[in-house]
């Protein structure tokens, strides 16, 4: 097979892109599809044809642009003019946009000065903090390229890192580079990635597996989905590099079945990569083989836990198994396996290309690089954001998020989903990084960040998260299976105004047993939302109990 020349492909794509006078980027992620981007795109396409502009203007269906609450989104890039972002589009507006913006800008460039006033109302300045405060590494290409197009990805520097790794680097050098970058697992655990790879690389075995954990399950989090939908090749490239580093014989993507679009795009991307021989045999003429395949989850949050994920691929119940043995020693089908989160892998190609030191220059002493968050809840600009580690929560919520959507004051921000906790308003100056969040009883988690306003009832929030983990408990170990439910019953009792003063102690007692004795992370962290709200909002719990006590006295 002839070796693919990345530069040739890249030049060809750039030349083609330059042949257009304007490019219209239409966000085609799950969120925007749900808000109707497909009919908008059709309207744009027919509008362009009507104005005889379809040869001069390219429509680029992209992955997530981030501003999910304001979809459908179209970013208009006319040559030599500043880009304009249209929000909350509909087919009629789209046709007007073509007629009043694209058409005059292209056909009468001398007289066209700016977007007409009535259309400006449907745009958002790309100079708003939502965009300017972000630093994009993982999401760099998402929203800029056609996710399915391997050539587009190559044109933006894609697969250079893979070529470099397979042709010029030893596995040890790759691991060294990743270790230097300070990258930590983005799935929530935060274990240093370089060290993790090093552990599996050391183990000898006839077979070894690299596994990508795409079983994103935190309610209110969809970072991995957007990365897979918006830039699947980055994940594949990261996976191949990781596989090379640990000496994998095959690779497995484990993706939630609830993400059909992500699966479809990933599948197409793998096939394209295989055609270019970036996946398969004798990659870049290195003599090294590595193929990858997709397996689907089936609706079990606990499968985000490594050992449960492995059991699930094997066709078993997703029940975690005790560690040791660790998957790095005895994992999938009993062979050494290395499980990495989607976002972790998506960081890899850039780290290789730009160097570990570059990545380490961003962030804090112990949390390097950037982190993608799904900023949702009662926030004005809700969507997918990427920020440097160490940025304050306040800046994320108030500047990037634009404050609450309700106009009410922020009460707290929840991070880490059902394994995390709440950060009250008074602590919002907190820099976002693994260790600081932990100090306040929450965790970084996979990237869910939920804004709550004054109206939100914290006992109810705790109940929501605990209800989630109770539903998702695999049922194997007693502390989680029964403890979670009893804890939930106790919370419900308090929420219903039937709590007694001693119930709070009982709550803490049960939470302790669950934390200390559950077999896996799901059970060990399930009480966190309760303990965290109990810590910061004890008055809300107390108020409900007092109400009950005083009601009885009357």
């Amino acid at each position, binding site marked *: 097979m002839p070796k693919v020349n990345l530069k040739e492909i890249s030049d060809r794509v750039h030349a083609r892109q330059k042949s257009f006078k304007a490019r219209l980027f239409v966000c085609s992620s799950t969120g925007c599809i749900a808000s109707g981007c497909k009919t908008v795109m059709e309207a744009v396409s027919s509008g362009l044809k009507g104005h005889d502009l379809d040869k001069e203007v390219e429509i680029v269906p992209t992955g997530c642009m981030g501003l999910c609450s304001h979809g459908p989104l179209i970013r208009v890039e006319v040559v030599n003019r500043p880009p304009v972002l249209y929000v909350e589009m509909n087919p009629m507006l789209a046709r007007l946009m073509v007629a009043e913006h694209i058409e005059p800008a292209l056909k009468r460039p001398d007289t066209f000065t700016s977007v007409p006033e009535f259309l400006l109302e449907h745009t958002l300045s790309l100079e708003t903090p939502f965009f300017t405060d972000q630093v994009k590494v993982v999401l760099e290409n998402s929203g800029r390229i056609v996710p399915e197009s391997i050539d587009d990805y190559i044109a933006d520097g894609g697969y250079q890192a893979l070529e470099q790794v397979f042709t010029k680097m030893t596995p040890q050098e790759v691991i060294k580079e990743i270790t230097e970058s300070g990258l930590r697992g983005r799935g929530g655990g935060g274990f240093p990635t370089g060290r993790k790879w090093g552990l599996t690389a050391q183990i000898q075995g006839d077979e070894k597996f690299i596994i990508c954990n795409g079983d994103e399950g935190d309610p209110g989090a969809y970072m991995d989905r957007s990365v897979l939908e918006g830039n699947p090749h980055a994940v594949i490239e990261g996976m191949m590099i990781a596989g090379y580093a640990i000496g994998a014989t095959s690779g497995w993507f484990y993706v939630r079945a609830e993400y059909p679009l992500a699966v479809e795009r990933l599948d197409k991307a793998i096939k394209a990569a295989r055609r270019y021989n970036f996946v398969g045999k004798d990659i870049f003429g290195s003599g090294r083989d590595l193929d990858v395949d997709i397996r689907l989850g089936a609706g*079990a949050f606990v499968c985000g836990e490594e050992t449960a994920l492995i059991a699930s691929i094997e066709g078993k*119940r997703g029940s975690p*198994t*005790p560690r*040791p043995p660790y998957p790095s020693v005895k994992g999938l089908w009993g062979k050494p396996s290395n499980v990495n989160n989607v976002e972790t892998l998506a960081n890899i190609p850039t780290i290789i290309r730009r160097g570990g030191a570059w990545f380490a220059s961003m962030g804090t002493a112990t949390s390097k690089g950037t982190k993608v968050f799904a900023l949702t809840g009662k926030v004005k600009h809700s969507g997918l954001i990427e920020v440097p580690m160490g940025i304050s929560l306040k800046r994320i919520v108030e500047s990037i998020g634009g404050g609450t959507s309700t106009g009410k004051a922020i009460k707290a921000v929840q991070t880490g989903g059902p394994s995390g906790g709440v950060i009250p308003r008074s602590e919002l100056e907190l820099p976002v990084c693994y260790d600081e969040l932990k100090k306040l009883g929450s965790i970084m988690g996979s990237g869910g960040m939920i804004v709550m306003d004054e109206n939100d009832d914290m006992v109810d929030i705790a109940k929501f998260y605990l209800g989630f983990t*109770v*539903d*998702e*408990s*695999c*049922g*194997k*170990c*007693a*502390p989680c*299976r*029964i*403890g*979670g*439910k*009893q804890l939930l*019953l106790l919370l419900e009792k308090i929420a219903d105004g039937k709590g007694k003063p001693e119930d709070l102690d*009982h709550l803490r*007692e*049960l939470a*302790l*047993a669950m*934390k*200390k*004795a*559950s*077999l896996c992370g799901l059970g*060990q962290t399930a009480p966190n939302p309760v303990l965290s709200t109990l810590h910061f909002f004890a008055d809300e719990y107390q108020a409900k109990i007092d109400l009950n006590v005083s009601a009885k006295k009357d």
Partner: protein
Amino acid sequence: MINAILNGIKIQVEPGTSILQAAHQAQVKIPTLCYHPDLPPTASCGICVVKVKNAPNMMRACTTPVGEGMEITTQDAEIVAVRRSILELILSAHPNECLTCLRNGECELQRLAEDFGISRSDLPKLVPSLPIDDSTKSIVLDPRKCVRCGRCTVVCQNVQNVWALCMKNRGLDAVVAPAGDIQLADSPCVRCGQCSAHCPVGAIYEYNQAEEVWKALLDKEKHCIVQIAPAVRVSIGETFGFAPGTNLTGKLYTALRRMGFQQVFDTNFGADVTIMEEGSELVERITKGGDSLPLITTCCPAWVDFMEKFDSDMISYFSSCKSPQAIVGALTKSYYAEKIGVSPDKIFMVSIMPCTAKKFEIVRAKDMFASGHQDIDVSLTTRELARMIRQAGLEFASLDEGEADSPLGRYTGAGTIFGETGGVMEAALRTAHKLVTGKETDNLEFAPIHTLEGVKELTVKIGDKDIKVCVAHGLRNVEEVVDRVRQAKKAGQEPPWHFIEVMACLGGCVGGGGQFWGVTDKVRLERAAGLTKEDRGAKLRRSHENPDVKKLYDEFIGKPLSEKAHTLFHTHYVERSLYRR
């Protein structure tokens, strides 16, 4: 060796030793519930948590190996508090119907609650409302009492490879059940009862028929007769303070007589008859050659059930000879009934077996009504008998040594060793030698087939012939043997063995599913040693030397494999399911 510190004491253990084992070696008992020394740990209950220095959470002692330099604390106020909380949680999801539970006094959860001094419960009850499944009439599944320890599914799936039980649903709804909305009787269950022998609580237990037997014993019209299987005598003592393996045959005879049985027979006699028939069958098949070999033993009803379900292509290699239990049953209601002139329908025949599948065997085919009546009315397990002895108010430990009754009570050492893996084989070889060569052999012991290795092979010289034999126990091991036979047949080759002994339970009947709880390899070996010891010390050690057996053939049956023998001692097999498990 690994050096570590346990509760401040320096310890040294082999690599791979779990904290639980290490603690045991250091005379420290860590409480457990889901852990069973006979099975790989499931790590489900969390009762055995301990602290390991620098570990963020407590670790399960059952699955955590001791690491170099590890500092382990097995007991402090916090650990006890956590264990207590877990126990309270488990009790909140348990019906706590101890007084009406078969496991009352023998329950591992009850014992823990006592150890921890649990005296009250503030937690709301989370007991699921699920029906009892007694469809097999051998074992009963009461999922309400289940603590989800996973022992039964591990035994059923991993040890026995039967896959009748599985863990369905998840979270609080997780439940042990057959696959789908079916009952156990409609599942691949072979009724081996290993699940019931390993259950820590009263969630899976033998189908209890003590009441039926008491009723018959009180019925003046009934002539109640009992037989006891070999393995029962070396396990029954465990509930009365004897060490496993203590042979209590004499006390058992006395106890049964005191309970009201008019005749006490011994299944060991039936075992001697089985050898006469099966030995003859073996000789016949060896002579015939061709596709008639191998001969596979059929004393084990769980194995018979298993074969009919999954290995029905092996039916032609099965010995048609019934089990010793069935033979004594058939003879009691024919030979014995004639002798004393009692109508067989007045006889109530009870068998005491180490086995739950025997409850099924007595009705498994028309052949089990060889006397014209159901040959055995009720089959009880060792555990049921133990309970009945208590109910009868007998001081078992101080009972006199009794004798079994004629004509179905006297047995040889060959009959005794039927209760252990390799025993049937050894007994058969002793008699086969005589049948083939016409001469007695002095070589009566074949040590290699008495070990607990899953598949044991041996070549024995009988006359000028090399007889290749195989002994397998534990159904997963059996499958391996059957597969090898199948492959040889497929390839048109000689089968790898002439004669194969199969027992569904590990260790053979001494490890049966109806035996006393808490079996481990150590216990299996101790029980087996009790049987071996009796054989080695017996005057008569060849089945064909049993004078009562000789008399039986002279007076009643004629020759082995005769027409009468076929009517009473032989059965047939049918393919019974296509279940792939």
